[in-house]
Structure formats: C-alpha cells, structure tokens
C-alpha cells in the first residue's frame, strides 16, 4: 500500500467470487433438499396456481397456462429474493466492511449475483417447460439475454440504494418485505395483461417487473420479439435506477462505519 489511507488493491474478482459463494452456501445451510428448493418452489407454486385457476375457479383454459404462470413467477421470485437479501447485505457483512477497506459497492452486487445462480436454475426450468409444451427455441429467444441483463442492472441499482439506506433506517427491510407482498399482486403473474382495464395500463407500463413478464410472454408464448416500447422502458428504468442507486450509495457510504 502506497498511501496511508489504504486504498484497497486486492483481487476484485476473487473477492466477488467468494462473497457470492458464501451467500449461496449460507442460504441452504441445514436443508435436506438444499439447492433443489430453487427448483421445487416455483414448480409447486405453479402447480398450485394452475390447480386453482383451472379447477377451482375455472376460466383458465389456455393450454400453456403453466408456462404462462412460470413466466410471471421467475422474474418475481428473482426480484423478491434479490431485494430482500440485497437490502440487508451491508448490515449483514458489517464485519467485513469494518475491518477491510474493500470497495463497499461489491457487497450488495455480490448478493444480487448470488441470486443469479437461483435464477439460472429457474430459467432452465422455465425453458424446459416451454419445450415440453411445444414451444421450441426460435429466433426471438435471442432477446432473452438482453432483457434479463437490463433487469439485473435495474435490480442492482435498487439494491445499492436500499442497502445503503438500510444502514441508517433499519426498517427498510420491513418496507421491502411488504413491498414484495404487494408486488405479487401487481405483477400479472396469474392473470393476463389483456384483462387490465385500459385506464390502468400506463401504471403497468412503468413497472419494470411487469414489463419483463410481458416481454417474457411475448418471446416464449407468442413467439415474437418484445415490443420495442417495453425494451426502451426497461433500458430507461435500468439507467435511472443504477444512476440513482450509485448516487445514494456514494453519498452515504462515507458514514457507514459509525452506523453499522
């Protein structure tokens, strides 16, 4: 170290990798099914929702309803999981932050990336289901990496902001929890976008989670590229959230030490 203030010069990727793996291991500690839960949870939820809307309430006759539900559940699960573990990430790794002058931004980003491992498993499940329901890969699928990349950037921005605020206002966590609960209903998971009355559609347009769900259904079920307005909205959402998140984080990070 050249300067006394101690600029951190460690191996950035090594740190990131270790943080991601640590998060991942802790989550399934002491569970007998372990990582399989990433697979079982959306499967069972899909089963429950399909059963309810096909048999109990009726009215859902779409032959690909399971794929339809999964297209909603996978983005929602990722959002809820990443937000919850991301918002508390700084406080949870207080030890690391107090002792080592690592770039603080790494911590929340690592927690989002560790959720990406679950996301990969769930996406594989979704793609498997799509194939099983006679929806083989096609050219529009090339859009999938693009929209997911934008979505992950968007969430990184939110998590950066939320984790910094959580250091000072500890009940950010409860706000995130109730927000997740409400969001389950406001994302078209088990209902279709078309039944929303016209005057409320703009509200959904500005909800990036709903936008991703719509884009996924466009690609996987309707088999055409997502509407360009959706992609544009998601780009704007990602840019705005990342800029705001980084700004909040930069502002607050100098005072982390006293508050953790």
């Amino acid at each position, binding site marked *: 170290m050249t300067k006394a203030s101690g600029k951190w010069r460690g191996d950035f990727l090594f740190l990131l990798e270790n943080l991601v793996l640590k998060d991942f291991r802790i989550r399934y500690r002491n569970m007998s099914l372990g990582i399989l839960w990433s697979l079982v949870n959306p499967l069972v939820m899909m089963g*429950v929702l399909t059963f309810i809307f096909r048999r*109990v309430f009726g009215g859902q006759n779409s032959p690909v309803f399971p794929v339809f539900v999964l297209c909603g559940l996978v983005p929602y699960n990722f959002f809820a999981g990443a937000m919850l573990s991301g918002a508390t990430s700084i406080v949870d790794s207080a030890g690391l932050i107090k002792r080592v002058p690592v770039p603080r931004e790494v911590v929340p980003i690592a927690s989002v990336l560790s959720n990406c491992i679950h996301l990969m498993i769930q996406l594989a499940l979704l793609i498997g289901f799509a194939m099983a329901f006679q929806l083989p890969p096609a050219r529009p699928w090339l859009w999938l990496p693009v929209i997911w990349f934008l979505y992950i950037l968007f969430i990184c921005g939110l998590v950066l902001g939320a984790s910094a605020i959580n250091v000072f206002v500890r009940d950010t966590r409860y706000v995130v929890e109730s927000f997740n609960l409400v969001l389950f209903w*406001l994302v078209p998971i088990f*209902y279709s976008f078309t039944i*929303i009355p016209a005057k*409320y559609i703009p509200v959904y347009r500005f909800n990036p989670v709903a936008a991703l769900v719509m884009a996924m259904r466009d690609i996987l079920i309707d088999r055409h590229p997502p509407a360009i307005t959706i992609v544009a909205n998601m780009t704007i959402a990602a840019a705005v959230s990342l800029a705001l998140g980084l700004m909040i984080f930069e502002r607050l990070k100098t005072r982390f030490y006293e508050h953790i």
Partner: protein
Amino acid sequence: MAQLVRRDFELRYVGSAAGWLWGVVHPLVMLLSWVFVFKICLGITLQPGSVTQSYWMFLFCGFLPWMLFNETVTRSAGSLVEQSNLITRTVFPSEVLPVSIFLSSLIHHLIGVALAVLSAVIALHTFSPMILLLPMYMFFVGLLAVGVGWIAASLHVYLRDTGQVLSVVMTLWFWLTPIMIDEEKIPMRFHPLVAWNPMSWVVRAYRERLLTATWPHWQEIAVLAAYSGAIFIAGGLFFRHLKRGFADVL
C-alpha cells in the same frame, strides 16, 4: 412474557420514523391492490344474497383474520431458530415464542379491526353491536395459529426445509379460504375442502359480525371451538414431544 411481546413489537420498528403507522399503511395498501386485482381485473362480483354488496368491505373483513393467522404462523416457524441463543443458554420456556408472536400481531390486528369498523360506519352507515363478540373469534384464531405455529416451529428446528414447505402450504390454504370470492362461486366438488377448513368459518364469522347484526349460530361456535381446541392441543403435544431435542440441534 410481556417483555417478549414488547421486544418483538419494538424490534420490528426500531429506528422507524413512521413508527407503527406502518401497521396501518400495510393492510390498506394490500387491500387496495387486492381490490384492484380481484374486482377490477378479474371482475369478481358478489352474489345478491351475501352479507354486503360492497366488495371493499367484503374483502377487508375477510382478510383481517387471515392476515393475523398467516402472520403468526409464518413468523412462528422461524422463531425458535432465530432465538436459539435464548434456548440453548438459558432455561427458557420456548413454547411462549409463538404465543408472543401472536400477541404482537394481535396489536396490528386490532388496529385493522378498528379501521374496518370505522369504514363500515362511514361507507355503509352500519354499526353492528355484534363486534363485541369479535374477541371470542380472535381467541379461536389465536388457538389455531399458535397450534399450527408450534408444529411448524418445532419441525423447523429439525428440518430447515419447513419454512419453504410452509410458504407453499399457506398459499394453497389462502386460495381455499373464501376471502376474495363468495363461497357459492367455488365449484360444488370443492365445497368439502372449504367446509373442512377452519379459517373459512372464521372469515365468514368476521364478515357477519362486522357487517350484520345477526347472532352467531351455535353450530358455528361449536365447530370453531372444537377445531381450535383440537389443533391447539395437538400442536402443544407435538411441540412437547420434539422439545427434548432442541438444545442438541440448535
């Protein structure tokens, strides 16, 4: 015990600027989004013969007891593991944890019930003296929730997967309780599932007590008392049986 309830309540709101105002805002936001989804998007309507024609009130009165039950059970499940310090280091009666969670959720619930009574007066111009019977139903919900909470919490100590299983079970349970839909609209062959579900009795009773001035049918009280008593005792026995191993596993 009083300490635990206070700690649980305070712990959830430390450093909170809005304090327990959050307890008021959360159910209202939830109600708003459910009305939006079920009434406006899915177009669910009420039968002419039901207790009220206002979907808002129908949903509000129905989801209050469900929230109390759901919150108690889901938070109880993880409680023993979270408090493992207390259990392993001291002689601590771990069975009080779900009870204290129930009591702290009850504070929220009472705020919610007050809001429901208030909105019934303002929106429907009805005030039912029968709300004086509500504490009895809260007691039944308490027995049910603590009973189920005991089972979930003690299982969770041994099998950490219980939390995951529980979230699925509670989702299914929610849909099989007539909270956002009239019972009559559920197909005939699923009626037994609804009738066998103690929470549907509670939800129905809450609606009738809050919105109409009719006396409860004795059968309803008998069924609820039997259910909640049985589940409470079963949960207690189950918990006592598994408790012996807690200190080793935690």
